[in-house]
């Protein structure tokens, strides 16, 4: 099934992937990959978060709704989370989101959680390459047409400053 899809897409299929990266480890590793001029697949789009513990199941599902062919979360190594245990929570949520994808008929292989330290630039690059290859094999998710895989849930607009919450200091 997936091979067939990949074939239909032709050899030129370049998946687009959203990578949610934590500031302290994965994002830093990505910068280090840059400093050391490692080359990796240009398919990933990094969205920086302070900690992978900030990543919500909603964000993971939204990535696919917006048209991503794959999505991954990259956080600190187990036990090394800058915020103690955010990466462990992220893993649980990623696993949960995989089950939702499965129920929605989307291959859960399209979603993954990875761990790496700030010094692991080669791991960052290799992860980007390997996940791109995996997504390429899985083929395009929606053949150009987007679907709402999570009907009925609408995100709130951002909060605005209220009078009860005045600026504490002229920054």
């Amino acid at each position: 099934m997936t091979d067939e899809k990949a074939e239909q897409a032709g050899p030129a299929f370049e998946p687009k992937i959203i990578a949610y990266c934590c500031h302290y480890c994965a994002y830093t590793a990505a910068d280090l990959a840059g400093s050391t001029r490692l080359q990796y697949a240009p398919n990933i789009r990094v969205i920086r978060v302070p900690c992978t513990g900030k990543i919500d199941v909603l964000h993971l599902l939204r990535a696919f709704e917006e048209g991503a062919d794959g999505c991954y979360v990259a956080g600190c190594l187990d036990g090394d989370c800058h915020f103690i245990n955010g990466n462990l929570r992220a893993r649980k949520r990623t696993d949960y989101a995989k089950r939702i994808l499965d129920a929605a008929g989307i291959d859960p292989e399209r979603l993954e959680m990875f761990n790496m330290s700030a010094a692991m630039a080669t791991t960052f690059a290799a992860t980007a390459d390997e996940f791109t290859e995996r997504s390429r094999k899985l083929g395009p998710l929606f053949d150009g047409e987007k679907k709402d895989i999570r009907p009925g849930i609408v995100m709130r607009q951002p909060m605005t400053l209220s009078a009860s919450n005045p600026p504490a200091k002229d920054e």
Partner: protein
Amino acid sequence: MAETSNTEGSVLVVGGGIAGMQAALDLVESGFYVYVADSAPAIGGHMAQLDKTFPTNDCAMCTEAPRLVDVANDLNIEVLTLTDVLAIEGEPGNFTVHLRKRARYVDEIRCTGCGDCIAKCPVKNLPDAFNLGIDNRTAIYKLYPQGVPNVAVIDAEHCLKLTKDKCGICERVCQAKAINYEAQDEVVTVHVGGVIVAGGYEMSESGTRSEYGHGRYANVITGLAFERYLSASGPTNGHVVRPSDQQTPKRIAFIQCVGSRDITSRGNGYCSQVCCMYSTKHAIIAKEHEKGVEATIFYIDLRAHGKGCENYYISAEKDYGVEFIRSMVPAVRENPADKSLTLAYLGGDGERIEREFDLVVLATAMEPSPGMAELARNLDLKLDDYGFIRTQETDPIATSREAIYAVGLSSGPKDIPDSVMQASAAAGRVGAIIASARGSRLVEKTYPPLEVIEGQEPRVGVFVCHCGINIAGVIDVEALAEYAKTLPGVVHSDHIMYSCSPDGLDTIRSAITEHKLNRVVVAACTPRTHEPLFQETLREAGINRYLFELANIRDQCSWVHSADEARATEKARDLIRSAIAKAALAEPLYTVPISNTQRCLVIGGGAAGMTAALTVAGQGYGVSLIERDAELGGHLRSIRTLLGGDAPQELLADLRRRVDEHPLVDVHLETTLKEISGFVGNFKSVLATNGSTTEIEHGTIIVAAGAKSYEPTEYLYGENARVVTQFQLEAGLAGGTLPIDDGSTVVMIQCVGNRTDERPYCGRVCCAQAVKNAIAIKEKHPRAVVHVLYRDLRVFGLYEQYYLAARKLGVIFTRYDDDDPPKVSAGDKLSVTVNDLVRGEPMHISADLLVLSVGVVADEAHEALGMQLKVPRTSDGFFLEAHVKLRPVDFATEGMFVCGLAHFPKMLGESIFQAQAAAGRALTTMSQEQLTASAVVAQVEPEMCKQCLACVRSCPYNVPKMTHMHYVQIEPAECQGCGICVAECPAKAIQLRRFTDAQIMAQAHAVMNET
């Protein structure tokens, strides 16, 4: 200590290079006013001339530019350019220094740096010294485009108006009326409590070795000139060309030790320390710039003794195919027809080889800066035999005069991190002398009032950075800037050569005002390093710092997809859309003040820990010093002698006495860190001492936890009593317990346990230690035979002189091949066989004693410490600093610092100044009575809170609390900004500011969709 009411809360820093800037910034943060005097027309020093820095290949300008801007913008730093020291009088804590400020002929306040005068100046043929004469400059000029201050200067020797009273064009074209031909040199007098000399160096340009033909052969250039060719903002825009025909060279030879390690009258007896690595860098970058370039490095010993350097060297050879040839090149010959160059040298087998190259790059010596002798005379400082300021191993930044410190290249060749550390160290030291006057000279920064943007539609300004060719070489930045104009909310878009340089920031500031921008997106490098700089720029332009977003199109795009320009450009468009989408939803945020416990926890009571503790306490703040052993001293206990003659055991006794006696230092022996919680300014730790526990509160942490000596398994160690380590030899020599006499033969083997596959780093100290102990043996027993078997002798910097001394004493140095280590077998004596690469045959030595030079290895116990503190370590197990070059003692986590052997193997003197540096950095935080809490915190929307307590349970820091108002409250000062509670909250009643769900969703939409 001068603690009279006359104490001046200010410091003079002589030299505005990277070390001088670091010292100035640390001092200002610690509450002191700073004068930076530099003899050049702009600060920045040599680092401004560099293209990239080893071993991370970070762009030098990208890392230096933010410092330049910080120095330029700080109200409490007064930059005095074209300025030299004339005389000093007074005493520590209260000096009067007279400075001569040479005429610039351009008013620094009026000049806008627009460059109109430079464009019209008729004198255009003066060799540009900043570019090593590769191109020309005008008589009115700027030292370099990103220079601070961003002001022109007139070269009085060549200006037609000043020399012949003709011309005067610059005065006519200057709209700002900044030209003043009547300007005179002036004497400026400053009152300071101390002086830091960061006087830099001169890169020897003369062909100290004339046989290489520098100055005669067009295609023989210096390493610094090569650096300018590589630089994107250099004279060839980053293209390496042959001076003779402007063609791309295909074969480049790099010759090491040109004027260094050269005891002839033309050279310098010391090693310049950084050339092996910068030539390796040159070779790597040349190969990156032009495909098919062959790079060959000719060297004596490849000295890769810095952190990360051995791997860099290995990678250059294996991954990049750089050729390393161990041979001293006797001469270079130019081939008149095509100006190519022939090098003749001896190959490994002793045969004569001739090879032709297109370009020859000489790694010339780093010499004392030309003004050093006069400066030392005027400040009454002693110089060493080479003309550097004399310092001591046990007090490495102190000069012969109290309250005057020498940092960076002033006291001998060193790399950027060591220079930066010494600068922070000097800030820590001088602060102790003037602590009583802290804050007395500070001026508060005033900002324009904040624009009220609440309720306004987003007006986004986009600035796409070229970063020289770092971005523009891969991505079409002009097209990208045009593209950004078409995106929703964008009202202005521009592209800038270096967005982080002062002129780049000016462009952003003016655009904010002119186009009434209320959101700014810069597409450039990484927010990790550059976000604070751009945020400050927004605030200076009157808009809140948090209305800013960086699109990382360099580190995470142009650098990593340079092979695929089209797809890199496509990705850059996506990333810019993402940043704009996020910025459009950004709201103004405000910080809050938080308390600061002005106390430091120092982990480790060796030389580094004790020095750090005393430096912190010296400025009047309390320290808890914990040591897991029953006594203080650490590694220093096993060091009996030092090169240069200082007495390490006297130092140890002195440190112990001072630590014991200091009222502000609490020592806890046999103590480890059991638990730690909190954050900068507000740490709570539980210390465990023999089963009992103590709780302490502190605001900063210095990790000085040391390291271990490698326990060898090689060469019969532990099996044969004749096999010892250098430390055992040292103890034996001191105690007379080893059977060495005039009839003895001693063999030393280097690199035992280091530079192996398992530990691919250099032990840094072992070569010097072997030389030291070999000298000690020969001095005591001149007829004893001492062999040192080595791979590369890495007696770097000024230590080189002791290598020469050892050779003069008759120590026999024999090199062995990496793949063919010596063989040792036991008999009546020890039989050592080594393949002598020079003679080409095995050498058999019958040894009475075999000494193994074992390296320093990381302590396994530090893995747990790293986990407790949540700080990273390298793959070798040493603690990893925030930035290898510019934040060498900071951890990425605020309020935590590292020094000594826990960071990397280092000499005693290096541990001492690094400890002082860690203290100096910690003091920048500790000296604040209040800290400022981040504005990036979680906030509860009370009416949406269902009191389910998911946040209370999930917060790793126990910050969310139930209130009597029936909703959860999150205290901003305590919130760490991780956002875990936000993701856990089922009612979506919590938002993390700056990373709201709406912003993340908007980013996900924008990266995937054109509209």
